[in-house]
């Protein structure tokens, strides 16, 4: 029987409890958002004692379902002030599911200055002193824990940024090789973990694929069918495995939607120098890897291993990080991007928020655009806790206020990812309206606007974008509950057999009779829950807007503005 693991940091107690009936068919984002909505007062201080941090594997995590090892992390965000679910690859989700843990709920905060480590094994869970890990970067913490508890353990941890309670701090866990680079990065959940004085969670499970399944034969057949669907689709079967995510640099650049120089242009002259093709070539030439799986059982293997000139390894450099720390800063050098990415991973920062923040600092003239060495030097200040370092770790909206910058690309306090909403208007609708703040993963309209997956809606026109974003946000919320990687959506959007195969797997695992309509309803329910939390936290529909410069400043080369009106954006939630 699956259980909840409740960790009371105030009393330093751990206990396993039964899963309430109402949570039985929830997983991943559906479960983290439900628990946060049920147990966290929406008006609470995200860093105070009433906030909670929730970890949940997806419904299918820990089984043989392909690419199903995603981990959801939820809480009230110190960056946005709203509900947050951040989602990571890595190996701990499958381990938690195999230990029969449906969710970990971290609550309260201890008195005093101590730091703690939560150790979870098949025998149970215990809180240990972690004073010796405090102040250390995530790579070192992960290496120490693997040395101490075994090389196969999963290590969830925060870096110094999380310990300093900085609002752009993420929560990381490691890949099969021990790289602590698989981040639930967005929204500052690292600071929520730091506020509970929890430095790390070590998950030791001998099993990866043996989570209980009610009807193994049926499950096996459905998983096989779904694997074939992923292998057959050109993006999940060829594109992602061959080139990884950074291959998007060129296509988004050609589409004129690659935010360059803090969202002032849509094309970067040196895009090729930071492209996925260049990354793959350099990685392989240096003994790294152009393709790599972030968790066992992934068939897309879109990750990479990029050796840096200083002997360190950045694994991976993903598209969003590549863009945020490259073109967004007018930096056309993958070694600089890799170095910045590595520092973010080590100090414990979200790469997207950090890149957007550095862009704002460049806009302010604090660092020159294109100056990689200055960017590295500034970023290194985060770990030292200098005033500039703390500003960088606090995100783009804070940095904009400190330096009086008006071109601050953020919604609900969260920095925009790697697609300019003036040249990819569907994603602009998602940025504006997602309960998460500006988040590309919560309704990836780029697929349909630019990659021509799941149909085609012209990225430069306002028509059809609201409907597109709404449908994607509903489907994504449901998908984020399964533990499946979001990238399966490329196949699911095009192949009518895709979604039924997912539902078959869930039904076989849980002995349920869910239909496709139930899945859509689950997605709607999650969004309603998250939006209601935000409403009670003080958000109104007027917060579902992009910064005004997107409506005022034309973006070259297409010279378009974001022209979807507020009342149209409000229609996203008419379900």
């Amino acid at each position: 029987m699956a259980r909840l693991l409740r960790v009371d940091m105030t009393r330093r107690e751990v206990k396993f409890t039964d899963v309430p009936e109402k949570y039985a068919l929830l997983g991943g984002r559906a479960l983290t958002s439900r628990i946060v909505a049920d147990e966290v007062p929406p008006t609470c201080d995200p860093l105070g004692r009433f906030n909670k941090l929730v970890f949940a594997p997806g419904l299918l995590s820990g089984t043989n379902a392909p690419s199903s090892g995603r981990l959801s992390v939820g809480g009230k965000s110190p960056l946005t002030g709203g509900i947050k679910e951040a989602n990571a690859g890595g190996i701990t989700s499958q381990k938690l599911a195999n230990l029969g843990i449906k969710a970990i709920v971290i609550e309260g905060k201890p008195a005093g200055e101590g730091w703690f480590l939560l150790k979870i094994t098949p025998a149970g869970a215990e809180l240990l002193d972690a004073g010796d890990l405090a102040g250390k970067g995530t790579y070192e913490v992960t290496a120490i824990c693997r040395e101490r508890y075994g090389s196969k353990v999963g290590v969830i941890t925060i870096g110094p940024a999380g310990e300093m309670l900085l609002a752009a701090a993420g929560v990381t866990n490691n890949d099969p090789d021990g790289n602590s680079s698989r981040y639930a990065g967005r929204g500052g959940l690292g600071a929520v973990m730091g506020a509970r004085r929890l430095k790390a969670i070590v998950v030791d499970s001998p099993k990866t694929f043996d989570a209980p399944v009610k009807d193994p034969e049926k499950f096996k057949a459905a998983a096989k069918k779904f694997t074939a669907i992923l292998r057959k689709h050109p993006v999940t079967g060829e594109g992602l495995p061959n080139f990884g995510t950074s291959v998007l640099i060129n296509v988004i650049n050609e589409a004129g939607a690659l935010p360059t120089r803090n969202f002032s242009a849509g094309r970067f002259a040196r895009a090729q120098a930071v492209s996925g093709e260049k990354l793959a070539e350099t990685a392989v030439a240096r003994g790294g890897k152009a393709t790599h799986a972030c968790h066992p059982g992934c068939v897309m293997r879109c990750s990479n291993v990029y050796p840096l000139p200083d002997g360190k390894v950045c694994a991976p450099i993903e598209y969003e990080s590549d863009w945020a720390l490259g073109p967004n800063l007018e930096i056309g050098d993958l070694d600089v991007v890799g170095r910045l990415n590595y520092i973010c991973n080590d100090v414990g920062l979200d790469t997207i928020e950090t890149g957007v923040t550095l862009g704002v600092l460049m806009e302010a003239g604090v660092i020159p655009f294109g100056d990689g060495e200055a960017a590295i030097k500034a970023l290194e200040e985060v770990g030292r806790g200098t005033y500039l370092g703390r500003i960088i770790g606090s995100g783009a909206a804070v940095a904009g206020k400190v330096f009086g910058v008006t071109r601050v690309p953020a919604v609900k306090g969260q920095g925009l990812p790697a697609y300019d909403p003036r040249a990819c208007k569907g994603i602009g609708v998602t940025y504006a309206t997602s309960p998460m703040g500006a988040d590309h993963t919560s309704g990836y309209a780029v697929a349909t606007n630019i990659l021509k997956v799941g149909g085609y809606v012209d990225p430069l026109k306002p028509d059809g974008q609201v409907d597109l974003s709404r449908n994607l946000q509903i489907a994504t919320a449901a998908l984020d509950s399964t533990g499946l990687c979001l990238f399966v959506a490329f196949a699911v959007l095009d192949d009518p057999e895709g979604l039924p195969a997912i539902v078959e797997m869930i039904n076989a695992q849980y002995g349920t009779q869910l239909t496709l309509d139930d899945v859509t309803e689950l997605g709607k329910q999650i969004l309603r829950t998250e939006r209601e939390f935000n409403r009670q936290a003080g958000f109104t529909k007027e917060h579902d807007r992009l910064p005004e410069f997107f409506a005022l400043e034309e973006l070259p080369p297409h010279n378009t503005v974001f022209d979807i009106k507020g009342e149209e954006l409000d229609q996203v939630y008419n379900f």
Partner: protein
Amino acid sequence: MEVEVRVFSGLEKFVPGAGPGKALLVQVPEGATGRELIAQLQIPSDQIFTMFVNGRHALPEQVLQPGDRVALFPPIGGG
């Protein structure tokens, strides 16, 4: 007439002198379509997933204009 062509993500192996993202100046007959350009470059048409002309999606039958910037991609995704 001349058009500016870029091929990406592995398509360069079909085109002599191409590198990923390198701008190639290609002579095509007046009124040539995207499909004819692809045939002239000897790229198997099933390898092309997306064609942009001047940063906008184009269908294979689109008639090219002098100086057009054409970009050709195989299936790719990410995010």
